[in-house]
């Protein structure tokens, strides 16, 4: 093998998809944040100018990440994790409060969000722990340890009032499933989630009764083994806890804005007066975002021609709601293309992860795919009104330095690990 080939055996498909997303993302940030004529795209007082700078910086990150030895990431994973945790802890002392969440470090005009980078640290640490020869994931002890690795940053982030970023950590369940956690667990989790949501939507009592009826019918007609009363009783008990617990949780634990989001999502409000009020308050974002997307129709209105985008009708449009710009200005064709690019990227990462020779690289690859999957699903689902509002960015697309750099770091560490597979004998 020649020396030239050695350094450049990267997976160019991933790199191409990455460049497409970053490039198209910047186009849309420009549309969403520009007002009036654009004198120069290098105007650093405007989001599109800044984002251009962030993208350039991310290229430096890529160069650095790819030039390091791939062993480095495995060896230093614990250190990186530790640094992430320290950075999160530091927020309690030096954090800057933006929109109620204390999750930023202010460095002059630049703000850094350590929770974005903590995902990289956690993914590396989890991969390292699970690939360790001494770890046996089928034991409860090691399962708890793995969960602890994930929970630590999650708990720190939720203490800083950033619920959205915390929820991202639930995505690591995909790694557990891949590494041997029975699929039943996830089915139970989905079942529990469904039960809670249904009891919120249709009130707890009927859902409980229906579920218990199904359980009883199952007990008498479909059950294969004898004497399993205890198991069935547990299910019944859980049903009670979930249905009434969900209602209690919704009414007493959730904050008003969170209640509103769920009420909006499940269309719980029926009073027409309150609905009118909703439209002007917390439902406003969703209504405007759906309106913007719908107005794009098949081919969209064209770059910087979207009336709702240029009129700044959608709040936070260049960050979490960036997909509405795609919807309005590029229409169904453009938006569907973006969805397809994300799906391709995630699938490509999973396929490559499966091809990895080392367990560390595979688990890390899986983590990358799972994190991207979570952000993609939640963000786009939110702007289209399919899931309740959870404010997390669209990877590579949304405006913001921390987000872009963290995702670049996350992705290109995997690209580096993967290139090692190809380059190694």
């Amino acid at each position: 093998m020649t020396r030239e080939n050695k350094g450049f055996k990267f997976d160019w498909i991933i790199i191409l998809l990455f460049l497409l997303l970053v490039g198209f993302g910047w186009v849309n940030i420009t549309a969403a944040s520009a007002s009036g004529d654009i004198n120069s795209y290098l105007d650093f007082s405007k989001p599109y100018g800044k984002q251009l700078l962030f993208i350039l910086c991310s290229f430096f990150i890529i160069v650095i990440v790819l030039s390091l030895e791939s062993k480095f990431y495995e060896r230093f994973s614990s250190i990186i994790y530790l640094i992430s945790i320290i950075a999160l802890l530091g927020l309690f002392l030096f954090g800057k409060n933006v929109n109620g969440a204390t999750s930023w470090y202010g460095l002059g005009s630049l703000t850094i969000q350590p929770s974005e980078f903590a995902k990289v640290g956690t993914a590396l640490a989890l991969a390292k722990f699970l690939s360790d020869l001494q770890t046996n994931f089928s034991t409860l002890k090691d399962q708890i340890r793995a969960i602890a690795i994930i929970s630590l940053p999650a708990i720190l982030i939720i203490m800083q009032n950033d619920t959205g970023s915390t929820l991202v950590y639930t995505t690591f369940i995909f790694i557990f499933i891949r590494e041997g956690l029975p699929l039943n667990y996830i089915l139970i989790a989905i079942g529990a989630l469904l039960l809670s949501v249904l009891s919120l939507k249709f009130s707890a009592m009927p859902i409980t009764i229906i579920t218990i009826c199904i359980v009883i019918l199952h007990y008498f007609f479909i059950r294969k083994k004898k004497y399993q009363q205890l198991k069935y009783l547990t299910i019944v008990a859980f049903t009670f806890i979930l249905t009434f617990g969900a209602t209690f949780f919704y009414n007493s634990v959730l904050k008003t804005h969170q209640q509103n989001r769920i009420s909006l999502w499940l269309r719980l409000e029926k009073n027409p007066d309150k609905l009118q009020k909703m439209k002007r308050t917390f439902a406003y974002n969703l209504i405007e975002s759906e309106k913007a997307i719908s107005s794009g129709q098949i081919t969209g209105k064209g770059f910087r021609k979207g009336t709702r985008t240029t009129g700044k009708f959608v709040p936070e449009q260049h960050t979490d709601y960036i997909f509405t710009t795609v919807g309005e200005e590029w229409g169904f064709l453009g938006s569907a293309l973006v969805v397809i690019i994300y799906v391709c990227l995630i699938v490509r990462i999973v396929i490559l992860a499966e091809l990895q020779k080392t367990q560390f690289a595979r688990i890390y690859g899986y983590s990358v795919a799972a994190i991207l999957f979570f952000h993609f699903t939640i963000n786009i689902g939110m702007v289209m009104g399919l899931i309740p509002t959870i404010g997390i960015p669209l990877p590579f697309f949304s405006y913001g330095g921390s987000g872009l750099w963290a995702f670049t770091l996350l992705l290109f560490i995997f690209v580096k690990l993967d290139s090692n597979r190809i380059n190694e004998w």
Partner: protein
Amino acid sequence: MKKLFLVFITICIGVIFISRLFYLQVYTTKKSTIFDDNAIRKEFTYPKRGFVFDRNNKLLVANQPSYDVMIVPNEVKPLDTTLFCKLLNITKQKFISTYKKTYRYSPKIPQVFVSQISKENYGVLAEKMRKFKGFYIRKRSLREYQTYIGANVLGNIGEVNYGDIKKKPYYRKGDLIGRAGIEKSYEEVLRGKKGVKYIQKDIFNRNIGSFKNGIYDTLAIPGKDIKITIDHDLQAYGELLMMHKRGGIIAIEPETGEILAMVSSPTYNPNDLVGRKRNANYLKLHKDTLANPLYDRSLQAQYVPGSPFKTIVALVGLQEEVINPKSTIRCVGAYNYGGKKPLGCHCGQGKRNLINGISRSCNSYFAHVYKQTIDKYENPSESTNRWANHIKSFGLGNYLNNDLSVGNKGFVPNGDYYDRRYKDFRWRSSTTISNAIGQGEVLTTPIQLANMTAVIANRGYYYTPHIIKSIENKTINQRFTTKHHSSIDKQHFEPVIEGMYQVFNNGGTAQTLRIPGIAICGKTGTAENKVKINGKSTQLTDHSIFTAFAPKDNPKIAIAVFIENGYWGSRFAGRIASLMIEKYLKGYTTRKDLENWIFTHSLENEYKKPYSGKPFKINGGAALQVIENYTKPTVN
């Protein structure tokens, strides 16, 4: 399975997202236009509404500016309310309640605070306006009538309502639309087309430039000026004559079908329906259900035609060859047609032919003609159908299809109608004999009667009566320049016209109404009528009807006058018709005593009587009301 779990879920999510996108962007999207986009502000520029001139180029309708005080509630700063209310001529309570109302509607949207302030108020207010933040003055254009007559002709304009907007998307809330008269029938010509500017706005309602560099913007197209066929002086004279009477006058130029005058009485000053007083005045007119000034009696009222109808009964008889100009009968003061009671006649008895039959209005003669016509064929139904078709060819019994905003069909019964009505009864000519003298089922509106007279004047044809003369040099619609022929041959008209000429000569029913120097032809009419009062059918004083045209050869005017409860034809209607013709043909009137009689005699008591609740006498039993110390009304 576990290896592909994430791949599987990712693809599922991808499919769900694309479906949702499809639903939002392709499936649910209506063909939306820039009008529906609330991110685009539509700013309209209103064109000048077209002027209206009469046939002699007298300006009848123009425009005047009107000023509305507008408010943007959330821009209002504390102000000197006492001064402001004084300037606007409103109370403080009114100020507060209006402010609250507008604020509740929307704090950001400009709304009308006080509409149509007077010119004097505007002058003072405009100077002080800068003191009142959040208020401004908006200029709009209203109609200005340069005359006090012709309310039913000119019509009026008013703000569009929800139904109008629904039907015609051109209009938007607050726009003005023609509500009656020519304002309604020529709405699209007069209004022009408003221009629109599309301005992109942001979430705070600020302008951020024109939409797509203004490629969709349009300029306002001014409304066209129109000239109508009305002769202002004749119309004014007609309205003057009609004061204190109810009814209608229609005067037509037979050779063109142009309507020279179209008087409906009682009427009102068209300026009453302009500006701030519009709503109150409209309500007042609308509530007057007895006199009903908003009802155009010249176009909408359907009356029994009475004796003028005999002229065409005679023409049909001639055409059907059941009589000839020489055939005679002897009138014995009644016509025994085989009914229970013979048909009475007041012609004075004697030998009657076509000419003196018309001039003396002999009922017997026309009953005879009618009977002959219907008995011509074995089947009365068939011959009545033939008869009805002849009658309809004079423009009776259906809409004239003209350019007036209201109208009525009238009614001409045919054989099928009587078949339906007398299902179990073999009806014959004697059953429907009242049609012979215009007292049966036939109903006509004054404009139809005038048109019928025009057919006779033209010796057999008419042009659809219309009111438009020209639209800014453009020729008028072809349907007003197409001849409609009646089914009667030309030669049959001369004897009938001779009869109508004799009406004004010795022994004729209108011999006192001759116009010096003008050969006039006409026909009197006296129509019995009944109304329902408190559910009881009550006979009232007869209607006075007159149709006429002049000069006899080459006629210039055909007229129909209808005066409710005027008793007999020549008493009111004949006098008015004669004066109108003279006024039109000469430009002045010579018979001041005749004119004065009309001015000083009122029918107001006659109209009040049936609703007084007391028993009353009709026709000859009632005294005619005389106005003492009559002075000509002087309106601007």
